[in-house]
């Protein structure tokens, strides 16, 4: 539903985005990853039409991005804020009217959301009387209230306590089920693995990785396993099957991190070991997004 094509954005001496292209599919949760200052926010500001690219274009449902799309997009910026002296209800009403909702419709929806997130009696409170986490909830409501097709969340979980983060996560999943597309921008990888279908990694204004989470993970697994057993085994005997990367002995148990030789399988490892030792566990080491992220960014540093 959203195609970003060869975007370039130059600030005076600093190139924020360099030929970045992305494809966000409808109904998916898309993770936009990258270290601080990589250009994530610049890209989001272009998608939300806060700034315009120097070259390249953004298509929204096949149409070149224009001001009619503003009401189709909900944006929760990383730098969050509300008018301090304004009442919560008034404020959300104002923001959603700016997105084109009528007063009646907006009021109805605000009531619905406030009830859902247990904030019914917040209507006439002022922002300055709310805690940070409470303010975030208000902003989340303001972001999704106009039922946008595309919801962009910049570091959505920063500032939430675990309970509220969970509530918000569930709301995101529910909205996604109803058909909303999400773009998640974050440098915290844990949240990505659970939620995202697809990710793109941006580092130093360039896109360096793009693909579905499963795909990326499988490319990055490298036949590494944890194996734990009781008994004695001379690992040198199995050299053709695996290499030992790391070995530990704890109270008579042995814990090994091994890497299979090419074309070997975990079954072969087991059959080699079974006659001699009692196997307690065998796990494949799947790289976390965090590992991949760090690995990718570091590798960039070398080049």
């Amino acid at each position, binding site marked *: 539903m959203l195609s970003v094509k060869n975007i370039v954005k130059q600030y005076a001496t600093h190139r924020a985005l360099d030929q970045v292209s992305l494809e966000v599919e409808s109904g998916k949760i898309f993770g936009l990853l990258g270290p601080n200052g990589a250009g994530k926010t610049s890209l989001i500001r272009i998608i939300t039409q*806060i*700034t*315009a690219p120097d070259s390249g274009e953004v298509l929204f449902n096949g149409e070149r991005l224009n001001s009619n799309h503003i009401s189709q997009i909900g944006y929760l910026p990383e730098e*969050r*804020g509300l*008018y301090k002296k304004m009442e919560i209800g008034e404020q959300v009403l104002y923001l959603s009217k*700016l997105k084109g909702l009528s007063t009646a419709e907006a009021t109805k929806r605000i009531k619905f959301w406030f009830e859902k997130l247990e904030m019914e009696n917040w209507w006439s409170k002022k922002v300055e009387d709310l805690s940070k986490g409470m303010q975030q909830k208000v902003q989340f409501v303001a972001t999704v209230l106009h039922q946008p097709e595309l919801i962009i969340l910049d570091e959505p979980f920063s500032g939430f306590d675990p309970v509220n983060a969970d509530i918000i996560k569930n709301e995101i999943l529910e909205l996604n089920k109803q058909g909303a597309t999400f773009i998640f921008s974050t440098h915290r990888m844990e949240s990505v693995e659970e939620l995202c279908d697809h990710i793109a990694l941006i580092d130093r204004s360039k896109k360096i990785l793009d693909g579905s989470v499963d795909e990326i993970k499988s490319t990055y697994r490298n036949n590494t396993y944890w194996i734990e057993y009781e008994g004695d085994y001379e690992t040198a005997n199995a050299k053709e099957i695996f290499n030992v990367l790391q070995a530990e002995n704890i109270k008579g148990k042995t814990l090994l991190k091994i890497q299979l030789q090419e074309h070997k399988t975990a079954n072969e490892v087991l059959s080699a070991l079974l006659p001699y030792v009692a196997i307690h566990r065998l796990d494949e080491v799947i790289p976390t997004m965090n590992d991949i992220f760090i690995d990718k960014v570091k590798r960039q540093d070398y080049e």
Partner: protein
Amino acid sequence: MNKVLLIIRREYLSRVKKKSFIIMTFLTPLLIAGIYGLIGYFTYKGIKDTHDKIAVVSTNKTLTDKLVTDKNIEYKYVDQALDVMKKSLKKSDYDYVLYLPEFKLEDPKGIELFGEKQAGLSLNGRISRDIEELIRNQKLKESGISQNDLDQLKTSVNIETKKIAAETGKEESSSAGASTIIAFIAGILMFMFIMLYGIQVMRGVIEEKTSRIIEVMISSVKPFQLMMGKIIGIALVGLTQFILWIVLTFTISTIAATVLIDKADVKKITTSAEGNQIAKGTEVVTQTQGPIGDIQKNLAGLDFGKIISVFVFFFLGGYLFYSALYAAIGSAVDSETETQQFMMPVMMPLLLGYALSLSVVTNDPYGNVAFWLSMIPFTSPIAMVVRMPYGVPGWELALSMTILIIGFIGTVWVASRIYRVGILMYGKKTTFKEMFKWFTYKN
């Protein structure tokens, strides 16, 4: 457009509903009326209460008449030596001792006034005038004019300044005094309004920036819409306040005037003030011929409808002109403390316009300086309203208005280009160079 209206509505309502706005709006006219009331009351009381008893020690044989006692000053000729009087002054109930030695009429020397306290300027002037009067009468008598003729000589002259309107040829009464008062009030009000509301715009922009709501806002509206909505919304707040002030001040002062001061007192003040000048007041002084009545009459001669509508126009124009600049400043900084370096260049022309308008322009409302000050959009809002009460030719007014409109379109354009970049810049110290760079950014 609809979005701009929403923004205007919010900016307007959020300010008008504030307690401080309501208090300011209702308290200021009360304060102004109160201050003027107090000034009036004390002036009146001062005139009524001044009563000095003066012992006159005269060794003068030339003057045949004596100093005349009236309500505020009592001259008592005493038959004692000066030294004795001076010594006993403390115990006696006289306030001062006036010594009139023998002197030639052409060269009156050696007149002295002794007192426990230093005699004030007005008392001093009053006594000198009385003595001068006495000497003049003496001289006139010596040249053979009878007392009767002398009394007939006294006339009170009051020039009624009338201005002939160029277009209609109609005579309008005008008064330098009344015009100057109105000009001062208008100039000060204009300066205050532009400053106060311009700074409100700046504060509003800074608030949006520091509270970080700006990013949410400009993902829904264009920066230009947000800026204009804010500027117009605050302009309406200013207008509301101005109209309320006028209505309230008018109501309060009318009520105060009718309730507190009864007519007879006003008459007494004017006649006694007049009477002082004429010494032996043989003329019946009517109320309207006193200085206060004069101003009252000429105030009525001024076209308030026109002055107020011109004021409103120049307030809006001048405010738009400056508030756009203030918005640009607000967008470039992170907090109010950082605004100083940018405030100076914006404040300077306004201050200069204010200072020059209240000095040069009120002295010579038709001169070259006045003309140019009322044309340059940086100073014209103040200069023009200061000139208005004196009367300004229609074409000058039209030209000045046109220039101001062009001027504010210009500043709004410049400011909006700086604003759209500035509002997204956090945590950086901005310089003028950088602001210029922002101005040239494409988008």
